[in-house]
């Protein structure tokens, strides 16, 4: 099960955070700092999974942006690893060549996309068209 989903840049600034299990608001900052620190300490020869306390972190780096997913022991690491890429591809399609700026200025939309893909900590949809469909409808409604 997915515990949290983070997008943090190399400077340690959180660009998006979504928790699927309640974490106290003031403990979140601490956790995010520690998480990004442990990701930055890894080299590209090392594997993309980290043990962190009693859960695992799966991370991928896109330019300066890290996407880190915290999962519990029962989760399939490789599936999450691919899910991250799937998510980025969806963003890429929606924003046509996504950048960190897109994510910063369209936080709500990124959240909506993520919500289409993950429910209650479980991956529920991976089809790009179906993920984007509700959002595109919303967009159309607000245009007209």
């Amino acid at each position, binding site marked *: 099960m997915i515990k949290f989903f983070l997008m943090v840049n190399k400077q340690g600034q959180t660009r998006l955070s979504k928790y699927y299990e309640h974490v106290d608001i003031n403990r979140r900052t601490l956790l995010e700092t520690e998480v990004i620190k442990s990701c930055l300490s890894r080299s590209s*020869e*090392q*594997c*993309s*999974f*980290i*043990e962190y*306390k*009693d859960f695992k972190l799966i991370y991928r780096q896109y330019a300066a942006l890290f996407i880190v997913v915290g999962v519990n022991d029962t989760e*399939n*690491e*490789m*599936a999450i*690893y*691919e899910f991250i*890429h799937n998510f980025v591809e969806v963003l890429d399609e929606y924003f046509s060549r996504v950048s960190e700026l897109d994510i910063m200025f369209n936080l709500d939309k990124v959240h909506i996309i993520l919500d289409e893909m993950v429910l209650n900590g479980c991956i529920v949809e991976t089809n790009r068209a179906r993920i984007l469909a509700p959002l595109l409808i919303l967009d159309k409604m607000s245009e007209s």
Partner: protein
Amino acid sequence: MSDIVERTLTALPGLFLQSQPGGGPAAAKTPFSSRLGGLVRGVTALSSKHEEEKLIQQELSSLKATVSAPTTTLKMMKECMVRLMYCEMLGYDASFGYIHAIKLAQQGNLLEKRVGYLAVSLFLHESHELLLLLVNTVVKDLQSTNLVEVCMALTIVSQIFPREMIPAVLPLIEDKLQHSKTSELMYDVLDESLRRAELNHNVTYAILFECVHTVYSIYPKSELLEKAAKCIGKFVLSPKINLKYLGLKALTCVVQQDPSLALQHQMTIIECLDHPDPIIKRETLELLYRITNSQNVTVIVQKMLEYLHQSKEEYIIVNLVGKIAELAEKYAPDNVWFIQTMNAVFSVGGDVMHPDIPSNFLRLLAEGFDDEMEEQQLRLYAVQSYLSLLDMENVFYPQKFLQVMSWVLGEYSYLLDTEKPEDVIKRLYKLLMSDSISSETKAWLIAAVTKLTAQAQASDTVERVIQEFTVSLDTCIRQHTFELKHLRENVEVMKSLLPVNKSCEDMVVDASLSFLDGYVAEGLSQGAAPYKPHHQRQEEKLSQEKVLNFEPYGLSFSSSGFTGRQSPAGISLGSDISGNSAEAGLKETNSLKLEGVKKLWGKEGYLPQKESAAGDGAEAPPLPPEVSPSENIDQAAAKRTQAQVLAPSKEEKEKQLLASSLFVGLGSESTVSLLGKPDVISHKFRRKSKVKAAKSGEAASTHNLTCSSLNSLSHVAYEENDYLTALQDGEDTESKDLPLGPELSDSESLSELPLAEKVSDCSLSALSLFADSDMEIFQPPSSAAASLTRDIASASCFLEETAGDMCSGRMEVCSDETVSVSSYKLWKDDCLLMVWSVTSKSGSQLKGADLDIFPAQNFKISEQRGCCLPVMEAGSTKNFQYSLQMEKPFTEENLSGFVNYQMVDTHSVQLEFSVNLSLLDFIRPLKISTEDFGKLWLSFANDVKQNIKISEPQAALPSALKMLQQKLRLHVVDIQGNEGLLACRLLPSTSSLLHCRVHADGLALWFRSSCPALPDYLSYQCQKVMMVGPGI
């Protein structure tokens, strides 16, 4: 189809009641379904919210009346539930119906049950307290043979079960997953997935991993296992680091089922062990942990310790330290290694490790094991090792380690030849004066000093300790010091209080504190409030707060404990800090599960040429000769791997050496050892079987008390002869009518089990069903009717013959076309008597029929010879009796045996059967007086408390006690106001007492016994009885 039939059948009574001409299923449904339709139409026709509210309230009040009316049938109830759901959907509270939804799920047939479950899932939420009442139903349905019921139960579990209830159903569900039927459906899908996942892409690896995982967790199919193993191999050997990780993880999961896989990849595993990436290393250690045995334990633990020294993360330390301690206790090759490993554990794990680790270690030292010599040597070595550790300058140890040291030094310094107690005290004093010692550790140290003082002659150091700490600001330390001071003034008392090497003996303490009676009486006379024990205060508080007790599953939870580490839960009379064996009496329940460890591994190592580096020479496996043709493929494969790596550089050689020491003891010979002699690699520290006779005088007197009260029981001695004559008489009763009903209910008052229960299985209820109903039901075929009569007849003969003994209904345990074997349990006063009757179906004479029981380790079985009556011999039935005594307590056990018979002119046939026996079969009422109860109560150390919620508890006490009396065979000793006392004994002579007290919303049960496991078991049974009992 069957569903339709079912519905038609259930609709029949309704049809008859309304005396309408039947019109098929559709007609039967109309009157009910139209009510919901009416409601829906009514609501849609309304124009305002106000009107809707009026209508729904009206509907709800009529529903309320219907659901609580006793005449409401389940069929009607089902329909009510649907309407209630509709009301709740519209937003109106229908909480009065929740309990009925649960009842419907319990009692209904298929469709009704489904609706009951549906309503429950819609009405209740995860933390709703009524869910507790559902557990039994779900557990029952999970065990049902009807697939539909099982599916319902599975659905409700996934929908609504909260975390705390999962353990109650988990084993059953896991069982379902392992079922071959379920698995068969998955084979094709898995096969197809494995075949198509050739694509070289990450996500296919993810899917493959899941497939592999599934293949190994369902009912095995060799073809798939082979493919999965190949897949794991691909992962492990992949140069991609993420895949390697996945491969290791998969190996870790499956290695216990398929050890040969680890052998195949041993060189890769060795490489991963020195991998620069700590995560890979960590996963490798996890894998090694799973394959540890007594031969490779030293190497594996060494690797783990190396990793431990490098890591800083607290979580990793706690986790690894726990594993090392577990392995060390299980597989330690010798004393020195064990103590040194534990020293490392305590030094590194220090104050973060699980508190069970030091207490388990101390318990192991204290209780000792089978070999007396070894035991003393272990203790001596521990003492020596700690002394040398303490002599090192400028080394700081964690507090927990110091506490362990001080306890061991206090208890076992007497084993030293070279040093006097005084010397040890000096070292302890040095520690006491150090600044880095916490006050808790100081208390341990002073306790150790106190113990040693009892052995030492006059000591200056002790004098100094007393001077120093009688003025300590810490009250606990000050108290301990004063105790020491006063004890020193009376050496005799001190020696008897602190005997040498008696840490495991039970101290007899006047738990009632009777010497304070005078003081208490004085206090009471001056108007002080009477003292309420802690639990009572707690309960009162609880009942005021109306908090639900979430403990009822104590037994089922603990029995599934995975690590065997349970924290002690008994009462403690003194302060634990004193370190004074406060754990006495908990040994059996909390002992390490040393025997439960699966031994999948044989004895063959990896490199035949090399001497095993692990273990000592004696334990090293015999070097295998050349590959014999009988060796299986796995092993051959291992040898091939070995051949491939036979171009040895020096580094390679080292790795191979490591491999040989790591993988020693893994291999394919395990099957041989399974078939032949049992695995001889025994655990070093095998616990003693610990039912020691009490030794001290006082303990003996307690024992006597128990015995005398047992002897005072009004034993009704049943001579076997009586029993036999009765059996013969039973023949006559066959001709009589069956006047069972009224007699049965009359005799209920005294007997601990109502006689009605005795015949529960012999279809009496079916008979009454025929009698009561006005309609015709299928007439059972005549042969069935005949057998029914025969059953009842023979049951009745058993009833009469046994006069006071309880007997179970007849149950067929096995049969074939010629004979059928059925069994009865006879709960005799001093044993359980099992009676098997072998009946020839054709009525012809049985020739040479014989019955034998397989020996079972938990029972003492003795055959009651001569019970095969000549009369019976000539007839078509032959009876065999065995009296059973329990040797070792257990909760549930199977007893199996076989029947051999020979029909005229055929060869002999053998039939196997088994019966299930539970601890309950060995529970008998203990008839004692209230006074004896009080005495016994104080003398028992093991207790368990339990709160059970019941409705209208004030009125329920008598019925609850009666139920316990009937179902569990407890003897009701006394009832005083809202409290009840019950007693029972576990054959042959272990007693257990129960104190029930009614409070505002439930029943508080408090069990005590001399046997540690018994209270838990009884409380579980009580709970079971109360939960399914009437009055919900």
